[in-house]
């Protein structure tokens, strides 16, 4: 029974199609995308640039409406943004005129919680990402990795049921990226918050995810779903395991074929 509960569907993407009407006619960004994301699942979406993975995330976030088809959170159709779905953007999107703590407490403030409570929540998550000493710094004083930590803390501070991450580590250098991956893994292993994570880095996808979704381009659709049966806890060492290597070769090959398709 408990096992069944863990496997309940958290996010359902049901036959989603998204068209953009531009100057040069209509572009189909997504077509017939159907996917069930389970409660507590960590799912990574990989695919070449322009395959619509960011569009899919925007639809899930409620920032874009699907042309047809619907997404559901716990069976409720998604229309518009909601604090139940937290988003971390690649460009950090911190409010530059606010300090670290003001950024992190933004969500709780929007819920009109008392200020003391907002501060307490913010401090908790700033501590989680290890930036206690930078509470009162402005974003311009932080490195890229620190900025993204703040953005992650800010998403967590709203206590979302689902985390949507749009290439969050894409702009970071390799070492910082590895460190943030490890931190995210640790947090997920503790909290098991359902996570929908977009990346173009196959290593990153395999390291983090329970399932990797490979998308094909133009129009964006799901090409294959690869279960990653490497047990947690994982860390950077996981990357040298034979199973990891095997999966990497397999997934990388498929993604590369899609990339070649896009180039045509």
């Amino acid at each position, binding site marked *: 029974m408990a096992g069944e509960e863990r496997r309940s569907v958290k996010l359902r993407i049901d036959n989603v199609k998204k068209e953009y009407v531009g100057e040069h006619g209509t572009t189909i960004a997504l077509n017939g995308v159907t996917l069930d994301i389970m409660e507590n699942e960590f799912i990574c979406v990989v695919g070449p640039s322009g395959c619509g993975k960011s569009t899919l995330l925007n639809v899930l*976030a*409620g*920032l874009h409406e699907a042309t047809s088809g619907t997404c559901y959170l716990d069976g409720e159709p998604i229309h518009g*943004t*909601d*604090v139940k*779905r*937290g*988003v971390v*953007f690649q*460009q950090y*999107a*911190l*409010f*530059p*005129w*606010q300090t670290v703590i003001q950024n992190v407490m*933004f*969500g709780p403030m*929007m*819920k009109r919680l008392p200020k003391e409570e907002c501060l307490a929540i913010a401090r908790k998550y700033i501590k989680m990402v290890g930036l206690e000493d930078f509470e009162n710094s*402005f*974003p*311009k004083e932080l490195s890229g990795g620190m900025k993204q930590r703040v953005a992650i803390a*800010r998403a967590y501070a*709203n206590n979302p049921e689902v985390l949507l991450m749009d290439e969050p580590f894409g702009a970071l250098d390799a070492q910082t990226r590895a460190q943030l991956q490890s931190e995210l893994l640790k947090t997920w292993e503790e909290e098991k918050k359902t996570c929908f994570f977009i990346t173009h880095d196959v290593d990153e996808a395999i390291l983090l995810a329970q399932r990797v979704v490979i998308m094909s381009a133009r129009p964006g659709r799901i090409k294959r779903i690869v279960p990653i049966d490497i047990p947690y806890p994982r860390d950077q060492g996981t990357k040298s395991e034979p199973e990891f290597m095997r999966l990497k070769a397999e997934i990388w090959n498929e993604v590369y074929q899609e990339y070649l398709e896009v180039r045509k």
Partner: protein
Amino acid sequence: MKESDEKLKGTKKKITISNKVWLLISFLAAILVWFLLSLGESTGRSFPFIQHTFFEAIPLMAVERNALWGDFASSMICVAAGFALGFITAVPVAFLMAWYVPVRKIIEPWINFIRNIPALAYAPLIVIMVGVGKKPAIILIWICTFMTMCITIYGGIRNIDNTLVKAARVLGANDMDIFFRITLPATVPFIITAVRLGLGAGLTTLLAAESTGAQAGLGMRIRSLSGSFESAPMLLYIIILGIIGLVLNKIVDIVERRLTSWQEKREDQ
């Protein structure tokens, strides 16, 4: 080679001149140029040196003709009133232009059309409309500051990073929150730039604004002195205009530093 480079840097560092000293040097150099100009036969007629410009012209204008203070006050009132009207109209119009396409499509060409016409050209039209006195001057400054500030603020609003708005939305912000917590603070740097440009526009319009029918004012006085070829008091008034500009700019600098210290800036020396 490297060593000598370092040595060179080392010696350079010892004779680093602070900005304040540079400012003093610049000031002294200007005085020197002025002095040289005053020596010439023809240039001396236009640039009488300090003893004439300050020690003779100030008593003349301030005491004998009792005009200096009145001119200063009158001009400041015109600039302040015109600028204030320009500011309180430019901010909402800029937002309307950024939010509503028809407003932008109609108003932007107007501004681009009028902006390139010297204010002096249409100043008489304003006088014919509202009569002489401070009124036409204020209206003219209003028009010029409005156009400069409106375009600047509008450009700023359009430049706001949309990701910030998205981030605020997914964190639960409603439209009001977005306006007061994202759009407004993100616009502050542009509003300050607009104020800086607006004040400049206000001062440069002053001469045109007071050209027709003003009874007092720095601009009006410069015109009337030019009629009697009194270059020393004219020069005094011109210097006063310059000082007002510098002081206003300094005030904007201080406000800017207080309000937008969060901005990422290139560190220029």
